[in-house]
């Protein structure tokens, strides 16, 4: 079959690879209907995520059709249209049982690598390096889905493929940020980043009752999209002082909840960006935490900062003093999708959450490298490029 392979730093190509096979009784094989580029893929394409091998298939956000089921699969049958959570959970370890699915104990096939990086390993994730499980990615004609009874969800008839696709990762990631940050009625919420995850975090905050939601970015079309489709206010950080703007909009208090949805390759227009970039290129830090620093400084006293962006290792100039002295709660997590996906599909069917506007571009699998090029450089207003093997 054809698949999009990582061939080295900033090198992608579509290659012929062996078809996936059922390797465990609880697996299913899914024929891809559509997948999407994700900002976190850019980190591994750029060589910031360790333990990639040339020839690895990437991609983790997808919708498809079940074409084969393992002997122990109970909840799926051939022909089911399913959206699959990007993180794989066994469903029965203590973490899965407590709805902390991205921390599953049993789905990272390289636990020693994850433990060397983080102290304890994360769950496995599709197409995201051998340190994060070593599972093949979804930018292919077919993908094997382990523990499918827990990670694959039937898509209701009223939801089209493109809309359902984003329930695989972007929508639950955004929802989790707002939910675990404790957003509630009366809150003012600031969200750094107007990509798909940032927009979904903003939408979640609105649905959870936030009084005002303010999103921060520099890309005009993304800011406009956030205002139009999400219903949030926006700030273009290239035209104003973000912290001052947020103080002004919150009666001087600062936002109650700050959600960072940018990650390890953050941009900014100040000298700190040059500093962070230099240190990252020299490998003196692995990640650029620009937006995290801003969020911590801007957050009100005793507020909450939630880090949704992907970070791989260590950062410099982390404002620990502000965290302590302002009494902040700082949380982060990879996505516990299985906890939210059924509820999110219901909300989507009810029209509360819309995602189709995120799919600004659609390309066939043969042109997947170009899809990532458009996405990386935000060319032609690209927010997400949808990759369809069948087109």
């Amino acid at each position, binding site marked *: 079959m054809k698949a999009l392979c990582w061939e080295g730093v900033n090198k992608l190509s579509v290659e012929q690879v062996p078809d996936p096979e059922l390797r465990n009784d609880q697996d299913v094989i899914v024929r891809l209907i559509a997948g999407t580029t994700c900002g976190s893929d850019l980190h591994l394409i750029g060589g910031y995520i360790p333990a990639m*091998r040339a020839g690895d298939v990437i991609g983790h956000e997808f919708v498809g059709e079940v074409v084969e089921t393992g002997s122990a699969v109970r909840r799926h049958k051939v022909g089911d249209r399913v959206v699959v959570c990007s993180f794989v959970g066994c469903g029965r*370890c203590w973490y899965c049982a407590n709805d902390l699915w991205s921390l599953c104990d049993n789905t990272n096939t390289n636990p020693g690598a994850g433990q060397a990086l983080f102290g304890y390993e994360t769950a496995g994730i599709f197409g995201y390096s051998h340190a994060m499980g070593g599972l093949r990615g979804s930018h292919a004609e077919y993908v094997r889905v382990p523990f499918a009874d827990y990670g694959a969800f039937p898509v209701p008839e009223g939801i089209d493929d493109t809309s359902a696709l984003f329930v695989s990762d972007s929508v639950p990631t955004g929802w989790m940020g707002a939910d675990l940050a404790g957003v509630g009625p009366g809150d003012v919420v600031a969200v750094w980043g107007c990509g798909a995850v940032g927009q979904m975090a903003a939408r979640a905050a609105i649905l959870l009752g936030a009084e005002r939601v303010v999103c921060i970015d520099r890309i005009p079309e993304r800011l406009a999209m956030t205002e139009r489709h999400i219903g949030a206010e926006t700030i273009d950080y290239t035209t104003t002082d973000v912290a001052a703007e947020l103080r002004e909009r919150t009666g001087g208090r600062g936002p109650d909840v700050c959600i960072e949805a940018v990650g390890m390759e953050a941009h900014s227009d100040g000298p700190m960006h040059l500093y962070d970039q230099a240190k990252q290129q020299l490998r003196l830090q692995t990640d650029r935490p620009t937006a995290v620093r801003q969020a911590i400084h801007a957050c009100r006293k005793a507020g909450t900062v939630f880090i949704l962006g992907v970070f791989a290792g260590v950062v410099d100039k982390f404002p620990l003093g502000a965290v302590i002295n302002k009494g902040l709660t700082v949380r982060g997590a990879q996505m516990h999708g299985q906890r939210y996906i059924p509820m999110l599909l219901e909300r989507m069917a009810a029209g509360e959450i819309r995602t189709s506007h995120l799919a600004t571009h659609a390309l066939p699998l043969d042109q997947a490298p170009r899809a990532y090029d458009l996405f990386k450089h935000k060319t032609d207003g690209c927010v997400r490029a949808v990759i369809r093997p069948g087109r």
Partner: protein
Amino acid sequence: MKKALWTIPVAAAGVAVARKAGATRRSEDRAGDRWLTVTVNRPVAEVRPDGELPGPLQRFAQEIDVRVAPAPGDRGTELAARFKEPTPAVSTSVPARLAGRDPRQDLRRALREAKALLEAGEVLRPDAPPTTRPTPGGKLIGLLGRRSGGEGVL
């Protein structure tokens, strides 16, 4: 004088490394005897029914001591194992670990597999082949991946 300033961080780093090495040696002296432990999200009666060892540990039955105890906070069962005979210190076992011949690797892997079987009913197998392009860097990651199931912090 200015030129000599570089010696301060270097000396400080040297002292730190020496202290760390001392600490590491002390901890390594004990490492061979340390219990390797997993917590299984199942009750004690299912982890060791009628005193039986979980399947993956049975081949070690004559070589290991096993300890089973309820985990606090309704977290299941703590399952611990260690070799009856002391194993080599971590520092002297690096070649064996790279070659996949350190006995602790097999025991760690068996503990992880026991936990996975008891909780999830199967041990997740990686996709095969893991990749399609043999490169030197890829082979190194492949080697580390093969050892990974037996390494880590258990």
